[in-house]
């Protein structure tokens, strides 16, 4: 066989560049709370503040001047300066103003849309996007990590709800960029939790991860085996969590008090009280709480029993989603070996009971449910920077498709397809001489475009005149390992092409991003330059490695003077890589490429000659074999 000519070369024989000094953390950027952790030599550690606290409330308070306060202090300001404080911003990530109009009445923010339909919040005299507010949280998280480690933390794995759509994922990545963090990978929260469990407890078999936090619900079914974490199916609701319980209780209390219309500040106050009541009822069976404002005190009694009756439909929704996920994975509840609980809301006794009922097994909560996601993210960050034996194989949570005639969705990538994935579908024109085609990308499970989430629209133009139905338009969907989508379209009979990185309709444009980077981060430019320099070095070192390998393999093809020329070019690249001049590195790499061109041609020649000999052997064998 011809491939016997070549030995298999294993990666890993060449060490990862700079493996030693990289600091990469894992960040659980939660709706309610954020946590940051690091893993070194396989040992994860949650990074705490100077008071020993791991949790950073995802709450931001804005002052009149440039003051930005994040975390516990910001949360303490909710009662004093409610109009300046933003919480649960994650619920608005990647949302358009149209998406949230339905819930705007319940939101404790003053919201507004901009010209593009993107949500903006009016806080303390500023107008801010959810991306900017999330970036402020991430900056505080980064600062806590840097203080704990005593060094810069430029890279991170950031977790997102498995059920986050493309727009919300892109928004998260944009927020990280604004905060000066390079995202090594977006990892789904339940997958991160499973990784932490699998590595810590050596769990093997089919496991469910049930994650009910403040604003989102996720459930994933994974098979864990010999270091492979394979997500079989995932499902969830990106707008279902403990916040909804708080809203129910707050509405009850306000109704009891006889209030009908309220400003944002009062709503926040009522929500705080509701949350305290809810959390108390996790360990107690009843209690009484007070609301005090506008010079009036009202008392509100609530029992766990009443609360459970109220929230039962909400919990049933999560159970229905669990059933759907089991069905998608063609699994039965009894196939599931264990259920891992994640998220603060899984402390609610009724949640535990219903989950135990469904799966017929007592759920596991032996790793702190507040920290497990960050721990898994940290482990993945270490794996990505230092290598590892474990492997995460994740899936797309939602189907991706295109609008076709009559507003019907044609699915191109089905939900629960393993990622990265690339799939193509062919379409045709429906009018004679049609020169362009509108391509509308949607995400979701429903049949009609209007019932799904619109991700992007673009036009493939320049289709040469053809009869209706003659053109062959091939639309390719590519989902990368972060779950982010790119769509390209091509008319295959002529090769006319068009490609978009799907920038969601409500996302931030590149120009806006550049503006924001300039405004919000003094060092953004330096960070960007540093990243480009690092990339140029990685590329140049890859080239050096390749040329050296080729030399040690085929140096007999070179005359001494040719060899000398290549050696000189190598030395120039080496010197350039020691310094910090990106242009010099790029130029030296190009010079190296030119210097080695004749050498490469000779190598190819010899390779083909050798293979030719191999082929004739091969075909001879085949004839004999027939």
């Amino acid at each position, binding site marked *: 066989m*011809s*491939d016997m*000519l*070549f*030995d*298999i*070369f*294993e*990666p890993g024989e060449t060490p*990862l*560049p*700079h493996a030693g000094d*990289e600091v990469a953390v894992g960040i659980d950027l939660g709706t309610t709370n954020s946590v940051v952790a690091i893993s070194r030599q396989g040992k994860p550690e949650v990074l705490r503040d100077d008071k020993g606290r791991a949790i950073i409330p995802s709450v931001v308070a804005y002052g009149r001047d440039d003051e930005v306060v994040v975390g516990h202090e910001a949360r303490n300001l909710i009662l004093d300066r409610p109009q300046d404080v933003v919480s649960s911003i994650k619920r608005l990530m990647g949302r358009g103003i149209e998406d949230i109009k339905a819930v705007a009445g319940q939101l404790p923010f003053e919201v507004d849309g901009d010209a593009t339909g993107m949500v903006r919040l009016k806080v303390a005299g500023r107008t801010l996007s959810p991306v900017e507010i999330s970036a402020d949280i991430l900056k505080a998280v980064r600062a806590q990590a840097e203080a704990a480690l005593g060094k810069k933390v430029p890279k991170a794995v950031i977790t997102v709800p498995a059920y986050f759509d493309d727009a919300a994922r892109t928004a998260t990545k944009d927020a990280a960029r604004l905060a000066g963090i390079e995202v*090594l*990978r977006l990892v789904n929260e339940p997958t991160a939790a499973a990784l932490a469990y699998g590595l810590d407890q050596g769990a093997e078999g089919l496991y469910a991860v049930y994650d009910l936090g403040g604003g989102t619900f996720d459930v994933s079914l994974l098979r864990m085996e010999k270091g*492979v974490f*394979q997500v079989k199916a995932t499902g969830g609701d990106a707008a279902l969590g403990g916040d909804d319980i708080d809203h129910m209780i707050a509405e009850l209390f306000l109704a009891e008090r006889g209030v009908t219309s309220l400003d944002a500040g009062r709503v926040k106050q009522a929500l705080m009280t509701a949350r305290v009541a809810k959390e108390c009822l996790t360990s107690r069976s009843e209690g009484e709480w007070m609301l005090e404002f506008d010079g009036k005190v009202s008392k509100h009694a609530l029992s766990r029993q009443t609360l459970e009756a109220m929230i039962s439909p909400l919990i049933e929704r999560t159970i*229905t989603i669990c*059933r759907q996920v089991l*069905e998608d994975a063609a699994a039965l509840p009894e196939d599931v070996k264990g259920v891992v609980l994640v998220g603060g809301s899984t402390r609610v006794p009724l949640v535990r009971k219903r989950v135990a009922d469904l799966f017929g097994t007592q759920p596991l909560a032996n790793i702190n449910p507040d920290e497990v996601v960050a721990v898994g993210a940290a482990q*993945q960050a270490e794996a*990505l*920077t230092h*290598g590892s034996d474990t*492997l*995460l*194989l994740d899936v797309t949570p939602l189907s991706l498709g295109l609008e076709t005639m009559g507003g019907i969705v044609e699915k191109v990538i089905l939900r629960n*397809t*393993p*990622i*990265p*994935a*690339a799939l193509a579908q062919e379409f045709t024109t429906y009018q004679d001489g049609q020169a362009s085609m509108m391509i509308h990308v949607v995400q979701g499970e429903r049949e009609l475009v209007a019932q799904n989430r619109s991700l992007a629209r673009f036009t493939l133009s320049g289709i040469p005149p053809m009869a209706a139905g003659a053109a062959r338009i091939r639309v390719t969907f*590519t989902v*990368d*390992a972060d779950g982010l989508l790119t769509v390209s379209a091509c008319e295959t009979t002529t090769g006319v092409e068009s490609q978009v990185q799907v920038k969601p309709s409500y996302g931030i444009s590149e120009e806006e991003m550049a503006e924001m980077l300039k405004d919000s981060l003094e060092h953004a430019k330096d960070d960007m330059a540093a990243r480009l320099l690092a*990339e140029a070095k*990685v*590329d140049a070192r*890859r*080239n050096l490695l*390749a040329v050296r*390998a*080729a030399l040690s*393999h*085929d140096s007999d093809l070179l005359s001494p003077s040719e060899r000398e020329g290549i050696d000189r070019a190598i030395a120039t690249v080496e010197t350039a890589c020691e310094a910090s001049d990106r242009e010099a590195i790029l130029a030296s790499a190009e010079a190296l490429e030119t210097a080695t*061109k004749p050498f*490469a041609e000779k*190598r*190819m020649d*010899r*390779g*083909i000659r050798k*293979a*030719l000999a*191999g*082929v004739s052997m091969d*075909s001879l064998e*085949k004839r004999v*074999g027939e």
Partner: protein
Amino acid sequence: MNIEAHHTDGLEACVVECWSCKGPASPRALFCSVCGAVQPPRPMDHFQRLGLMPGFDVDQGELERHYFGFQRRLHPDRFAARSAKEKLMSQQQAMALNEAYETLKEPLKRAAYLLKLKGRKADAEDSAKPADPALLMEQMEAREALMEADSAEQVQAILARTESDIAFAVDDLSQAFAAECLEGAAKLVMRLKYLMRLSDEARGRKSRMTRGTL
């Protein structure tokens, strides 16, 4: 072996250029034997991609072992600290592996794919071919029975029968392919397609019934 034959035709197919060291590389190699760079996925069929013998009978355990083994070496997570070009190559490799795995994992997709490899379309894709009247009849009757079933037990009975029919159809497919009877295999693919749809519908109906929302 006949599947491999058309890939060894021609010179280009025997030697390709490594994008990194620009020297000769084998079209089958995942990594360049000289410089170690990960190579892009080369044109090959899904069986070759996963190192399996082409055929309908695929051992699930073996399929998974091979898939995981290749992903361990090629998945983008292994290349996160490397150059942009290597990241791209590994992403393309992982995509090709995922597509191969998804296609070969399920009997229906595997059978349809195998037919295509052997140059025969499944009957549904062959618009010139009229649908099999006996199959149409059977489908209609089964649909009706499912619509009329008004207890979870009745739906369960239909589901159980469909699942056993699926198992038989898969067995028959295995025999048809073993006997190189593509005509028969194409018919069975159609039958399996309809049975799978029926079992999906039955399962959906059953879970709606047991949840009491029907």
